[in-house]
């Protein structure tokens, strides 16, 4: 182990050290300051006579006399099944007062890329019990589906609801084959209050025992946030691909993570990309998000639900924008729906699940799922459009059919989307509700649905009643 007392510069989260022996890129460093306290950091740049180190716990109190030790290895996460039920801080140190963790293995936190050839395509439906997701933007095992939210919106409630209710239909039928469900929760820069909300819910529902929690709070060092999600994902990969768990990883809030990246980039005086974020942010985010997936021949899976708050509700901001280009869809939390009291306030129109089409249909969910979804999307979009018009010309000026679309859009929000955070709907309930709503429209208007399916599911009596009422 090499030790130096040759710090030349301290700037923001960075420390520059002169060295006489080469140091590996990305290596882990320990810095011991006057009072015996030890900080950890990582080599960001390595040249033959000096290195730049990023200090996770902040550079406060470090002086030029501090001694720097290079550990000769890259950052590792000690992993074991015993991590389930444990709470750690943002650097992976237990903070729950529990027993010491005896690792089964120590794994590099910068996960290697999964060979695309070795992946298995995700197509197993995960039932979240939330109609706006299951019915309209279905989540599948191994998918990465972020929640696009903004300040003041209840994204945490939705994340918790999903964590509570998520199940895979085959498990319900009792055909469990040892593949258990686990939740990894990686918090980056959330407030203590939010953290309590999550922890209380985990404890209340007993979910904690199948969870691993990594907590980096708002007052913890920002730089630490860049390793928290990597620790969480390394643990997830271990549980999924070596211990056969189906792991759901919730990462919140990705916006704080990106802010930390920007802070380091600025300290290094890098050429910034859009809005001051580093030019490599796409690659960096991809290295996190792409760690979701399934691997051929392994029973487990890693499913990711990253949460991000869009600054100014703007989805063209670099953080949601780059995220959307990497993840397989997104769920939008909508401010208007929220103020109408819709729970969860999911706006299905801009939301999307890219892996949905292969995860639904006969044998997976139901044969009519795809058509019903398409028709609801089309009808709801039509209704939304008409709302603008109604404000100008009034309802009377619209045709019968247009009025039906308007009613459809209203009922869709009130009945289909607004189910409350405690209602757990299975996929049959969700689709039947969809048919209830679609039957408000005349059969001719259902041009996205196969005729046979219309015959099978269309509620004849409702329209008959309506005709009578007319």
């Amino acid at each position, binding site marked *: 182990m090499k030790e130096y007392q040759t710090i030349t510069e301290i700037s923001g989260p960075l420390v520059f050290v002169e060295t006489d022996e080469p140091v590996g890129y990305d290596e882990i460093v320990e810095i011991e300051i006057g009072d015996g306290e030890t900080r950890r950091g990582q080599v960001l740049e390595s040249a033959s006579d000096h290195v730049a180190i990023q200090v996770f716990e902040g550079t406060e109190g470090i002086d030029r006399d501090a001694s720097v030790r290079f550990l000769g290895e*890259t950052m590792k996460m000690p992993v074991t099944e015993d991590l389930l039920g444990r709470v750690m801080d943002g650097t992976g140190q237990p903070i729950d007062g529990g027993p010491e963790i005896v690792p089964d293995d120590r794994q590099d936190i910068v996960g290697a890329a999964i060979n695309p050839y070795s992946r298995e395509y995700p197509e197993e439906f995960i039932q979240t019990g939330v109609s706006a997701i299951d019915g309209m933007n279905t989540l599948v095992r191994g*998918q990465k589906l972020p929640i696009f939210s903004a300040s003041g919106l209840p994204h945490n409630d939705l994340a918790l609801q999903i964590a509570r209710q998520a199940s895979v239909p085959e498990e319900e039928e009792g055909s469990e084959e040892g593949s258990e469900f686990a939740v990894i929760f990686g918090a980056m820069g959330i407030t203590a209050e939010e953290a309590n909300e999550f922890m209380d819910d985990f404890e209340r529902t007993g979910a904690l025992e199948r969870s691993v929690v990594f907590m980096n709070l708002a007052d913890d060092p920002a730089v630490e946030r860049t390793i928290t999600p990597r620790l969480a994902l390394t643990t997830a990969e271990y549980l999924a691909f070596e211990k056969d768990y189906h792991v759901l990883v919730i990462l919140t809030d990705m916006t704080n993570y990106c802010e930390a990246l920007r802070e380091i980039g600025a300290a290094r005086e890098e050429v*910034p*990309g859009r809005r001051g974020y580093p030019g490599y942010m796409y690659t960096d985010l991809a290295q996190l998000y792409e760690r979701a997936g399934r691997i051929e021949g392994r029973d487990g899976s890693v499913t990711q639900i990253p949460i991000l708050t869009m600054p100014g509700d703007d989805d063209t901001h670099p953080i949601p924008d780059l995220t959307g280009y990497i993840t397989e869809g997104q769920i939008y939390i909508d401010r208007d729906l929220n103020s109408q009291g819709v729970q969860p306030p999911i706006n299905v129109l801009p939301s999307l699940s890219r892996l949905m089409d292969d995860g639904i249909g006969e044998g997976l969910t139901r044969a009519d799922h795809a058509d019903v979804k398409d028709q609801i999307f089309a009808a709801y979009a039509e209704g939304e459009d008409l709302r603008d018009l109604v404000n100008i010309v009034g309802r009377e000026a619209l045709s019968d059919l247009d009025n039906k679309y308007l009613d459809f859009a209203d009922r869709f929000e009130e009945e289909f989307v607004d189910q409350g955070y405690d209602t757990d709907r299975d996929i049959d309930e969700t689709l039947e509700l969809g048919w209830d709503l679609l039957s408000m429209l005349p059969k001719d208007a259902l041009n996205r649905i196969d005729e046979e399916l219309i015959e099978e599911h269309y509620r004849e009596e409702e329209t008959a009643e309506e005709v009578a009422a007319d």
Partner: protein
Amino acid sequence: MSQATESDVREDGIIESVSGPVVTARDLDARMNDVVYVGSEGLMGEVIEIEGNITTIQVYEETSGVSPGEPVEGTGAPLSVDLGPGMLDAIYDGVQRPLDVLEEKMGSAYLDRGVDAPGIDLEKEWEFQPEVAEGDSVEAGDIVGTVPETPSIDHKVMVPPNSDGGEVTAIESGTFTVEETVVELDSGEEIQMRQEWPVRQQRPSVDKETPTEPLISGQRVLDGLFPIAKGGTAAIPGPFGSGKTVTQHQLAKWADADIVVYVGCGERGNEMTEVIEDFPELEDPITGNALMDRTCLIANTSNMPVAARESCVYTGITIAEYFRDMGYDVALMADSTSRWAEAMREISSRLEEMPGEEGYPAYLSARLSAFYERAGYFSNINGTEGSVSVIGAVSPPGGDFSEPVTQNTLRIVKTFWALDADLAERRHFPSINWNESYSLYREQLDPWFVDNVRDDWPETRQWAIDTLDEEAELQEIVQLVGKDALPEDQQLTLEIARYLREAWLQQNAFHPTDTYCEPEKTYRIMDAIKTYNDEAFEALDAGVPVEELTDIESAPRLNRIGVQEDYNEYIDELEDDITSELRELY
């Protein structure tokens, strides 16, 4: 990736510094763009800058743990690909390492470092059938034999383009590996099935010609309104979730090219897996063989090293050019060129180069044009004709088309398929905006459509365009006053345009029949709507109220044509029904 021969190796150097994918080395004797092996693990890299004694290298693999002082070994050769039988049905990373071989060699589902593998199987034996005889004289590029590579494609073995040619002194049929000599020339030159070619250099040709044949995609909105030529270039820009990848996949599946090279550049791992799992099971509509038999995949997903992302489009286009030289029509899909541009930006910023617009390097535009210029309809040096069509997806940040990558791309390509988030939101797929998109090939391809589909293809298409244009104008008024305030003829136009949108432009990529639509069917659906239009307007002139015209029972059946397999019969009957129903009204 091609293996350099021992004799080329030049003076080795020592690592000076490491910063992400950029490594500098001291005392390395290398030329610009030479491939080098970095560090004790032998990570592959490429020389991108030489300044005095310091050489800057971009490394194609993760550099964690690499430290100054480790050796750098030069190969003396630029980044090249292996060309020969065995590339179809293959899946490569950005520097042509076969991913299936890597999985086997690394014994892990994760990509390890410092493992190299040849781009084509050196052991496998192929059936070689000579095309020339002893005593014939051959020149560079000439086809000397064929190998049945897959059920769909005969691989043509060619004299390398940089050969001097000569008289054939020995040639025989039989089974050979790609490294065994199949032809000997009097000059002493021995020709193998395997060639190498540096990826950043265009393969030579005689001439570039004006393309006159469309690349039929089986997508109504593309073939019908915005066709691309064989040898043409197209860009598909769109915000996330607007369907770029689905459109690219549809093209890769159904385009009537002989060979498809699909480059997944910095995109999602699961998407590439979908292609790997789907394509072997899909049937090529033209030959009936598996689609994979004509496909070469290059997958450099977003989390794979950024430098290899920069090189993957070049690897792809070099492979495409090689098949073009055999006289094939090749289509190359690059998804997404923005990720390629971002890789350039990332490397450029690590080099501390002066940035151009939005941090992209000043040479962005030059690189993009040089890449797209490698597309075209070519007269090859061996007398055959072949084409490379390039279709590049662009991912503009925030869906804003004014950003540098989109703008620089649009200056070069002749077809623009603008994806629209609004259309995608209402699940109108493919969500290609018909008002914004364009194709500059339309006129030069019309003669083909007239000869091969129908005489009045251009006129009928123009009618559809006019109707859609009129709708766009009318919609603005409708937004203000409502539909019922419009005169009756305009209300009817809106209804017709709706059918054009829903029955013709919309197409369900996931429906087994609707996913592919041949040009004849594209024409017939459009024509059926026009029949409805013509008959309805006549009835309107005769005084029938517009509600009755739009309420006829048979019209909604237009929306079902797409999913009909025996569409001719269905359309004949439907046209009769619409006509008779309308004529009964007056």
